[in-house]
């Protein structure tokens, strides 16, 4: 898109100013339209944000350049000189674009991660519920009954000991 604007600028200047104004106006309206339309879709929003960002950056830049162009007329070098500046500015814009791409990508990744984490949490919850209720039904009565059985055997062992000792204790005196 930036290259497109450059071509416009280099080819015709006077008409370009008008054209550029028209294009900036168009882009303004375009921006507004896009902003209004794209609320439902994330990618579009992202695209429009990137686009809007580029557009805002570019339109600012070109409005500045349009105003400054009559002063900088002359010489082939000037456009060339402008190019590094433009490149810097373009780099700045590109940097901003890439940054915003990274930002957009980061946003997408975090939202995907959040979605996956939510699903994982839900399925873990389901599994925990199934495991918990099955454990309650199958294992808890078993533990209770085995404990009771153990208590009963201990009691019987104790009683047997008492009976054994009392019989042993009483037998020798009887003899």
């Amino acid at each position, binding site marked *: 898109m930036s290259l497109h604007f450059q071509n416009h600028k280099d080819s015709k200047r006077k008409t370009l100013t008008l054209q550029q104004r028209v294009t900036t106006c168009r882009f303004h309206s375009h921006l507004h339209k896009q902003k209004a339309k794209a609320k439902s879709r994330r990618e579009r929003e992202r695209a429009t944000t990137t686009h809007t960002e580029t557009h805002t950056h570019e339109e600012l830049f070109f409005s500045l350049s349009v105003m400054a162009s009559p002063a900088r007329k002359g010489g082939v070098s000037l456009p060339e000189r402008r190019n590094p500046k433009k490149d810097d500015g373009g780099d700045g814009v590109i940097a901003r674009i890439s940054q915003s791409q990274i930002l957009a990508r980061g946003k997408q990744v975090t939202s995907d991660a959040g979605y996956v984490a939510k699903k994982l949490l839900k399925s873990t919850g389901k599994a925990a519920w*199934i495991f918990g*209720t*099955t454990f309650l*039904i*199958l294992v808890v*009565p*078993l533990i209770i*009954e*085995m404990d*009771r*059985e153990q208590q*009963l055997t201990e009691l019987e062992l104790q009683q047997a000991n008492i009976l054994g000792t009392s019989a042993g204790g009483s037998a020798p005196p009887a003899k």
Partner: protein
Amino acid sequence: MAGLVPPPPTAPDTPKQNERVDYLNLPCPIPYDEISREAYMSLKPELFEGMRIDFTKGLNQKFSLSHSVTMGPTEIPSQSTETIKIPTAQYEFGANFLDPKLMLVGRVLTDGRLNARVKCDLTENLSLKANSQLTNEPHMSHGMASFDYKGKDFRSQFQLGNGALFGANYIQSVTPNLSVGGEVFWAGQHRKSGIGYAARYNTDKMVATGQVASTGVVAMSYVQKVSDKVSLASDFMYNYLSRDVTASFGYDYILRQCRLRGKIDSNGVAAAFLEERLNMGLNFILSAEIDHRKKDYKFGFGLTVGE
């Protein structure tokens, strides 16, 4: 003490001799219908929902009466996948006559259904078993009679049912541990016939059975007696016509004060059944069944009074 002679070395040979001789002296096999009874006892307890109170009163040594009250939701078979439950309550009166040679059991329900069972030993080897269920609704009553002949190392049975149902089965002991058998049946009303084979291998510690039938059912079961109190059972059923597979695994703890059976299924069903002895002749029963797939939960409690 020095005059003791060491035991003769032929002692380990006698079991082998016993094994050789025993082919003429094989034990009588388990009846064909009960070929996997250990697995069924462990894995298929009588789960119920609601409240159940059974009272058995013995009037005589041979004769007893029983009263039973059940209240709770009963499932109605419905076409849709949802289970429809309707709360019902019923009272069942029954009379039992038990004799070494003759057993008569009858039950009457409040909705007019009558169950009757007869088991009679006609001679030493031939016995007759009959059961019938009569209802008020027309064409819903059915009855079945079977003649069992018990041989030295085989059993054979011939069954007759209403609706032109004929069946016959035969089971033979092949080795002291292994018995194999087969059955045929013919249902006149549905114009279906089938043939099936079964085998059972049991030792003191384990029982393994396998069954194949032309109705498309392949069933295998294995029961291991881990100790005299604990046994573990597993069961596998595959219907190759309807592509239905079920595997279940269960335990059976027979302790002094209680009997606890638990089972888990591949259909996502976990069930437990506890019979606790509160007092002499007083048993407290608890039943639980959780079906995770259909989200159907059934819990029941009850009391069994009497021997």
